[in-house]
């Protein structure tokens, strides 16, 4: 049995039916990681011992008749999400030896639901990047073509799912960090509504934009994981006190006659011709096979989203990353006085992209520039959010590409930060507005690279957005395609 080819829901069914024990399933995946991850480098750490112990425990519980919703199901976690007793490095030298004394709420909830954690996945340092090349340890390769990037920053999680090292993983998304790698690796990635999932224990990058979400082989699996990580958390005052609906049940929602807005700004200059074609083909499926209506709409402030984001996110980051001072945890580089110790620690501990963003953020927040940059960007953020509010008065969903191109080559963009930033052009607005963004495969380029489609929905529209994605994936069934690695 090729266990790694089964989506989470199918693995869970087999576990429940007693057709496989968690220990066997976990072992099979660990074997596969051992055999193949040297080519992909998706994992920063494989927690073999803990995973096997958790799998045995799950099997014991099942034999004792104890039911848990995800009992025995193996998953991976992005390495900026805290795991008690297991290093959480953020792919940074400054946290290379950091062992959290607590679990993030999402990890606690997954463990409570019975999940088995296989390991921690690679990312761009502190989730800052779009290719996973900013990891201080090593870059991750795209399983569909190892000369290409897996996207980022959740590139390790996306590559792990695409390579069949696990069928589900958690990532985080501040400007597209779940959706863009999902698109590059041909898997599903969901950025839930801001506040839908607790951020407690997610190492903060830009607190008003960060959100944890699932990367999976199918939309159905994304619904399954969201079910158990969503919900209010007293430890995160920005988590929303909204009820958690039954996402799996909602997948069957009848969406015939619903309206899809197609923003003209998402199909302009810079969009790769093949990507455009695949997204247009998908729109035809939504119309002709699923019975939805599509209409052109405008999100007029789209051209300002990248500029807005690259003020707000670095500003928040410069403040959040002030905590790495060589005192409480992480690297310390000794010096004679305190200020020198801070400077040496931070200069040796952070990589170039992190420093660049701290510098932009510090500049934008510094005396005399605050109004011109940070306040201005926060006002434009209002305009971007209003674009969506107005659009969602007329349409139920908005659909466009996830990224302007399929996966690009390793090292192609590392020397040009601005060009790298522009690969987030279609994903950033969703974070600024705090709405739902779902990335799912819609085809392959002539070179055999996955192409992704983005479905955007209003705040807390996860049930409908996932339903639409699920009904679409059941037509093309692209989740059946696996890369040869």
């Amino acid at each position, binding site marked *: 049995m090729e266990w790694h080819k089964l989506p989470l829901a199918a693995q869970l069914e087999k576990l429940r039916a007693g057709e496989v024990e968690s220990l066997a399933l976990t072992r099979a995946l660990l074997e596969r990681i051992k055999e193949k991850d040297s080519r992909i480098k998706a994992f920063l750490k494989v927690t073999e011992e803990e995973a096997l112990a958790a799998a045995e425990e799950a099997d014991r519980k099942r034999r004792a008749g104890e039911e848990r919703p995800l009992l025995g199901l193996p998953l991976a976690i992005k390495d900026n999400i805290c795991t008690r007793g297991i290093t959480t490095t953020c792919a940074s030298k400054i946290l290379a030896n950091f062992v959290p004394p607590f679990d993030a709420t999402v990890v606690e909830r997954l463990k409570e639901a019975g999940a088995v954690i296989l390991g921690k996945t690679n990312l761009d340092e502190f989730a800052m990047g779009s290719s996973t090349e900013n990891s201080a340890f090593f870059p991750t390769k795209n399983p569909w073509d190892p000369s290409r990037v897996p996207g980022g920053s959740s590139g390790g999680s996306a590559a792990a799912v695409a390579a069949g090292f696990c069928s589900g993983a958690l990532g985080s998304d501040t400007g597209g960090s779940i959706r863009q790698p999902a698109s590059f690796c041909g898997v599903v990635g969901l950025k839930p509504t801001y*506040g839908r999932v607790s951020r407690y224990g997610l190492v903060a990058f830009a607190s008003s934009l960060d959100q944890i979400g699932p990367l999976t082989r199918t939309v159905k699996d994304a619904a399954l994981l969201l079910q158990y990580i969503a919900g209010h958390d007293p430890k995160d005052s920005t988590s929303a006190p909204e009820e958690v609906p039954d996402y799996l049940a909602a997948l069957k929602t009848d969406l015939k006659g619903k309206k899809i807005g197609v923003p003209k700004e998402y199909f302009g200059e810079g969009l790769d011709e093949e990507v455009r074609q695949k997204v247009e083909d998908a729109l035809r499926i939504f119309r002709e096979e699923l019975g939805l209506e599509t209409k052109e709409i405008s999100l007029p402030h789209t051209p300002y989203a990248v*500029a807005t984001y690259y003020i707000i996110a670095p500003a928040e980051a*410069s403040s959040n990353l002030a905590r790495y001072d060589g005192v409480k945890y992480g690297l310390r580089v000794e010096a004679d006085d305190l200020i020198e110790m801070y400077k040496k620690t931070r*200069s040796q501990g952070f990589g170039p992209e992190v*420093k660049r963003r701290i*510098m932009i953020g510090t500049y934008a927040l510094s005396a005399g520039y605050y109004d011109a940059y940070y306040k201005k960007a926060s006002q*434009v953020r209002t305009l971007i959010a209003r674009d969506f509010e107005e659009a969602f008065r007329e349409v139920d969903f908005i659909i466009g590409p996830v990224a302007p191109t399929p996966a690009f080559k390793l090292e192609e963009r590392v020397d040009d930060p601005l060009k790298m930033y522009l690969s987030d052009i279609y994903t950033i607005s969703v974070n*600024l507005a705090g709405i739902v963004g779902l990335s799912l495969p819609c085809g392959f380029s002539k070179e055999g690279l996955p192409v992704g489609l983005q479905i955007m929905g209003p705040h807390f529209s996860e049930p409908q957005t996932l339903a639409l994605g699920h009904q679409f994936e059941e037509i093309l069934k692209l989740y059946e395609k696996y890369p040869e690695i």
Partner: protein
Amino acid sequence: MSITKEEVIHVAHLARLEFSEEELERFAEQLADILSYVEKLGELDTSNVEPTYHALKLTNVFREDEVKESLPTEEALANAPERENGFFVVPKVIK
């Protein structure tokens, strides 16, 4: 848009970072590029627009001031580069 080396040094100090000569020049250039790009925000009239600092309309969240279990001192200090008698140790501040 151009940024002088002195400005980069000043911002680096505020951010508690230090750079080599070569890095300073590269950063000055890259920051200038990024800030020039960002200047396009100036095209928009935002004089009557409220800024958004948070995507959801959540207001302050209050809770009862109750004593709850917290992290034991030992665990809280476990990751500290240097510690002594339940405290973090830093280089001497008062000369």
